[in-house]
């Protein structure tokens, strides 16, 4: 079960001068409960790819299966897919429109045909998941801080009870604390509910810290698809496509030249600290 993409191609403006192939023969399998990082420089096809996952864009050719059902079947209801695969766009706070926080979060559930009480219940639950409290319910979304607005917008998608949630750069423009808050909440959500999470990010440090699997896109193709350790081991390949490994990986690689017993494939600060302390201890 999960999402499967088979030979997916997507071409923008296929029949005029602005023709651009945004996805090339993408084959992917995403299992239930995975925490995936999707990386690639701007224009590599990440955004196009994620809009295929909930049917906002339709592949020019190729098939997509959600829970083994072909989403391009005539009988398939897109609204089912969209409620199952939630997509949080970049700067999602720009989509807020209601008078109150609670009402805004109710928008999704109501579109699914839920009655008012059920929608409110789901909205409250979703708001709690992103750390908003009861006293925020009746506030106008526009009087909140940037980070709070963003959390409300994320709750707006969570309230539809998706099985998969795709977040396009959920930390863009936030300060370091706001960034960590959001990422910790997403990570907790993954632990507690077991839903699949696909995190689009430009920060290798963040990706290394949170996800179990990384998909690297380049020129519309899946360039790499592996665990963070394996991906960041190949930093030269990443640099060729305009990316890099986390800073700490480079630190440890330099140190490895001096202390051969140090591992080369370190991706987080905690790991590096443990390895170094261990190594320096043994050296004494």
């Amino acid at each position, binding site marked *: 079960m999960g999402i499967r993409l088979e030979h997916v191609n997507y071409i923008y*403006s296929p029949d*005029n*001068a602005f023709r651009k192939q945004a996805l090339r023969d993408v084959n992917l399998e995403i299992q239930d409960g995975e925490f995936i990082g999707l990386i690639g420089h701007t224009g590599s096809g990440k955004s196009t790819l994620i*809009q295929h996952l*909930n049917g*906002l864009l339709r592949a020019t050719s190729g098939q997509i299966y959600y829970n083994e059902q072909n989403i391009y079947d005539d009988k398939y209801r897109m*609204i089912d897919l*969209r*409620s199952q695969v*939630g*997509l*949080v*766009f970049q700067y*999602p706070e*720009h*989509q*807020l*429109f209601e008078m109150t926080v609670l009402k805004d979060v109710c*928008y*999704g559930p109501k*579109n*699914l045909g839920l009655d008012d009480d059920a929608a409110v219940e789901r909205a409250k639950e979703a708001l709690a998941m992103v750390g908003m409290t009861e006293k925020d319910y009746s506030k106008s979304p*526009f009087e909140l801080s940037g980070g709070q607005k963003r959390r409300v917008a994320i709750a*707006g*998608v969570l309230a*539809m009870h998706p099985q998969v949630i795709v977040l396009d750069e959920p930390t863009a423009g936030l300060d370091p604390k706001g960034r960590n808050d959001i990422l910790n909440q997403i990570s907790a959500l993954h632990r507690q509910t077991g839903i699949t999470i696909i995190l689009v990010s430009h920060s290798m440090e963040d990706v290394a810290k949170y996800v179990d699997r990384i998909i690297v896109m380049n020129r519309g193709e899946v360039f790499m698809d592996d665990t963070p350790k394996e991906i960041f081991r190949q930093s030269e390949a990443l640099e060729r496509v305009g990316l890099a490994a986390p800073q700490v990986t480079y630190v440890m690689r330099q140190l490895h030249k001096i202390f051969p017993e140090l591992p080369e494939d370190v991706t987080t600060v905690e790991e590096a600290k443990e390895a170094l302390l261990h190594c320096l201890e043994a050296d004494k």
Partner: protein
Amino acid sequence: MIRDITIGQYYPANSVIHRLDPRVKLLGTIVFVVTVFFVNDLMGLALATVALAAVIGLSKVPLKYMLKGLKAIFILMIFTVLLNIFLTPGTELVHLGFLKITKEGLVLAGKTAIRLIYLIVGSTIMTLTTTPNHLTDGLEKALGPLKKIHFPVHELAMTMSIALRFIPILMEETDKIMKAQQARCADFESGNLIQRMKSLIPILVPLFISAIRRANDLAMAMEARCYHGGVGRTKMKPLVYALRDYLAYLLILVYILIWTGVKVWL
């Protein structure tokens, strides 16, 4: 579909038409629009076609790109054409239930379609070959005399040029907001008219807020760059007529003369 709107967009190229003074292009467009509006006979149509084809050829803007702009008004066109076909009284050709198609209707529909296409293409050429700033400079200069009666010519021109600059940005934004709401299972396609109007609120409110935010930012950015109205401002590209502009005026005059000649003569 939103991406297809080319009205108000500039297409950079190096052509005679691009280099023409915007005042020439403004007058030319007005003349063209007026003549197309009154065109009734084949001769007049042929003349307009030749003139339009010549300008398109000279402009070096791909025809395909120009026609893309028509897509946006396609529905309007079909609607007008259908109205004309079915509602013009005259010699009956075909009878479909309560609808009838007349010979006059077909002719009128054809004419209307051509007129609409020519009007749109004609005015898109102007915006495609003139940067908004240049265009508004032309307008500002052409309307210059109105300043004497305290008409805010500069402010109007500046507002227009900014509006033109932000059209593509806001179009893209609309597209993004629509998709974001669709990701929350919004449905913009079904329901009756009132329901559909209501379903637009989640798009219009964010769009409006974004437009205001952008306007605020822009006002600040303009002030930071010492903008303080039109007084004491110099021009990077002052409008000075060149020989080609006088020639173009001459051609416009010739066009008018032939056209009136045809009108009066035939």
